[in-house]
């Protein structure tokens, strides 16, 4: 039977004991993605992730727009983390056009991308909380991220989808008294994060559900090529902000957060520790930022890149985010490949879920720091 189908479709014979479950794409527990899970009783035998329900063809769209028109639609995959997804694109276009970014713009970029990382991580933390039955952890991050969104709104003019980063710098300068406002919000934010620690991360119910489930060893993490918090929770010290510092990250003092356990608890804790570190980065960037100067180099209208290729990557909220830009000398990119952390991390899902209880599926799945829309692009 299987030979009659094109290679895209294959059917499998079912065992009598094994039952197949479709989780998603409408089920909220799987995001915009289908998980084809086979269970034997309560235990998961195999898992087949099936993404693609929110595929929008960003890479194809990018081939038909010029370098500046590409900005608004490229941030749509992760609207909460839009500065970080535009970061590698801007770096790649700048390298292609040979543009040098002003010093002040580089610091503003660092502040914006760290604020964005916190906003994204708070959203993810809320979802992680509600799927483990912890309603307080859904309400609190959703409310507290509004304060950070207010900062970004004052900075960029939009709550989400900022379109703030452009090749050549950032779109506009920060408003007056911005520094005081950021410092005030950050001190409140850090106070709240400590409360999260008490109510969520030290919660015995959460620990019993997440500790020891879905263990990813260091060797497997390297072999599967996962990235971001999944990689760092498995004991691999790899953060692109340290390893391949872009813009001014080499001037800023901060530490990479690494845990060794590799289970769901460690995976959910690394983004939290990252948020605390982001606060330090923002403070440090504010002290080192030049007080005046331009924030943007004006590009020529409809700039043409030289016939060349560039691969640039940054550390986003979900791990390494790379863009491979091929130009043939026309104002549009000839090819733009977006390599995102979410897409690289789902590869480990079948290995983590094998032999796990079905009830632990959300704990493992959401601990991957996975954003389905970004994975599909």
């Amino acid at each position: 039977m299987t030979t009659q189908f094109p290679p895209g479709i294959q059917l499998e014979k079912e065992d009598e004991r094994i039952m197949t479950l479709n989780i998603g794409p409408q089920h909220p527990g799987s995001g915009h993605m289908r998980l084809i899970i086979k269970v034997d009783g309560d235990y998961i035998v195999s898992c087949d992730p099936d993404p693609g329900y929110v595929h929008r063809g960003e890479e194809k769209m990018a081939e038909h727009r010029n370098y500046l028109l590409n900005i608004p639609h490229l941030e749509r995959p992760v609207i909460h983390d839009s500065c970080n997804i535009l970061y590698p694109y801007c770096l790649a276009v700048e390298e292609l056009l040979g543009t040098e970014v002003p010093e002040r713009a580089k610091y503003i970029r660092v502040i914006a991308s760290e604020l964005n990382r916190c906003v994204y991580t708070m959203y993810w933390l809320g979802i992680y909380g509600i799927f483990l039955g912890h309603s307080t952890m859904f309400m609190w991050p959703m409310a507290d991220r509004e304060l950070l969104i207010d900062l970004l709104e004052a900075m960029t003019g939009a709550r989400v989808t900022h379109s703030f980063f452009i090749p050549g710098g950032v779109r506009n300068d920060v408003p007056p008294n911005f520094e005081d406002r950021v410092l005030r919000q950050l001190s409140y934010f850090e106070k709240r994060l400590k409360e999260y620690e008490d109510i969520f991360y030290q919660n015995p119910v959460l620990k019993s559900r997440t500790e020891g489930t879905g263990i990813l060893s260091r060797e497997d993490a390297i072999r599967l090529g996962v990235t971001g918090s999944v990689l760092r929770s498995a004991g691999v010290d790899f953060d692109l902000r340290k390893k391949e510092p872009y813009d001014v990250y080499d001037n800023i003092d901060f530490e990479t957060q690494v845990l060794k356990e590799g289970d769901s608890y460690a995976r959910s804790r690394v983004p939290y520790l990252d948020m605390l570190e982001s606060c330090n980065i923002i403070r440090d960037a504010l002290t080192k930022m030049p007080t005046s100067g331009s924030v943007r180099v004006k590009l020529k209208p409809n700039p043409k890149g030289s016939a060349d290729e560039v691969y640039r990557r940054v550390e986003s909220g979900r791990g390494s985010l790379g863009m491979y830009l091929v130009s043939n000398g026309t104002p549009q990119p000839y090819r733009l490949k977006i390599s995102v952390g979410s897409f690289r991390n789902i590869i480990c899902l079948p290995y983590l879920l094998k032999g796990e209880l079905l009830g632990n599926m959300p704990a493992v799945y959401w601990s991957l720091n996975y954003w389905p829309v970004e994975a599909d692009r």
Partner: protein
Amino acid sequence: MGSSNSTKKPAKARPKTKRKASKKTKRKATKKIKPKTSKKTKPEVAETKPEVAETKIEVAETKPEVAETKPEVVETKPEVAEKQVPEKKPTEDLPKFEKSIADRIVSSFGTKAEIGYIRPNRIRINTKKEDIVEIAKYIRDELKFDHAESVSGVDYPDSKEIEVVYHLGSYTDPQLSKQILTLATRVPREDVPNPGKDNTRMSSLRDVFFSVEFHERECFEMLGVFFEGHPDNRRLLLPEDWADLPPLRKDFRIKGR
């Protein structure tokens, strides 16, 4: 001072008139291509040229397309290239560490591996599709690159080829954490694709780098490159009943564009 100002003024005014003239001549040039216009637009083109001159050798296939769209630019191209290529040729500027890695690959494979470029933190190796598994094994075992960051396909309908580009990185070796090794190969492209059954195929690197599994599945559905030896050659993002061309090929058109 007054005299110097008076001498400067006409000098400042000159480029403005030149620009205006060049704009006018450009518009005219669309109707009738005059030989004079190429001379006037020269200084503008020359500013952006040095980068083009560097990369000309690497991406040679894209040239004809430029030639079709902008005939003016092509007139000035050869002159600039002749002047500036010899200046930039000396290999002393090449980063040493990256060059040592590339040299190790070339010394052990000879003509099978060809250096695309060497830049700070980036190396590109071009190879034939028959040799790619052998070279990838060497890169994994001897050079300690341990995972693939992305696998991208680039469609070149003019030369009837599809380029498959692997971006490889390393977690284990701290020296290599900055480096991205780009391993590229080309597979033949057929005008009427029949994904999985036609000639557009190459051997999979999944046994060498386990992390390419999903990336190769994506490349298969988006460009129709079949990876032999891949255990799971199903579609990933596209619907299962997709019957059109592979969407990232250049002849697949977006509606309304």
